[in-house]
């Protein structure tokens, strides 16, 4: 799935990384616990979260993720946008809640295990 499709499906707004919307991503994960993301995530390229602090971007960077979707209309800070831009990451924000956002993506073919379901 392209990041641009995620944007459409979640009616999301692009916070930064507009130039990378054509990138293909194979899977995603949703969590507000960064320690769990670091523990259980393998090759997911997209992180959905409602947590807003710079460690969210650092965690995603450690996991080589390419896109973070902020749910529940959470808005990333300037510092986070700078960090994400530095790493070439796309930040999206959506009004949808975590459950619905994950469900929409999963139902449209974005799996959770490093490949399309």
């Amino acid at each position, binding site marked *: 799935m392209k990041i641009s499709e995620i944007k459409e499906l979640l009616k999301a707004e692009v916070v930064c990384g507009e130039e990378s919307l054509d990138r293909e991503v194979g899977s995603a994960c949703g969590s507000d616990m960064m320690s769990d993301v670091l523990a259980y995530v393998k090759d997911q390229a997209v992180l959905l979260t409602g947590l807003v602090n710079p460690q969210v971007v*650092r965690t995603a960077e450690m996991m080589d993720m390419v896109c973070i979707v902020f749910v529940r209309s959470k808005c990333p800070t300037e510092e986070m946008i700078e960090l994400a831009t530095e790493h070439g990451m796309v930040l999206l924000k959506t009004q949808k809640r975590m459950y619905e956002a994950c469900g929409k993506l999963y139902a449209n073919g974005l799996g959770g295990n490093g490949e399309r379901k």
Partner: protein
Amino acid sequence: MTDAVRLHFLVDGEDFTSAGQASVQVKKNLRQLGIAPEIIRKVSIAMYEGEINMVIHAGGGEADVLIYEDRIEIELVDRGPGIANIDLAMQEGFSTAPDNIRSLGFGAGMGLPNMKRYTDSMHIESALGEGTRILMTVRL
């Protein structure tokens, strides 16, 4: 055999938002050295968790990364309160992190177990009131 490449970092214990800067730098350095991506990920996650731990629990510390031909060693040293029961601290889900850290997405009791998970060996030496030294090795 050529000498190891050594990277040294001071981890600032005052500012949680800056935690992880050393790990990001290590990641960049390892990329430049042409290390395989899956190795880079292991090293940077283990070090990142270690850095976060030092900031949460020990008021910061020092980190050294040594890159040899056959392995990467990460040494984390702090002068924090020490770990009372290492076996307990290694259990997934056990945490002594304060609530404000949990609200930032950490403190789930996964830090030390993650460090072990992503490295080939891990040794912890800790003395109450003196500090903690952790040595991790990832084979290349």
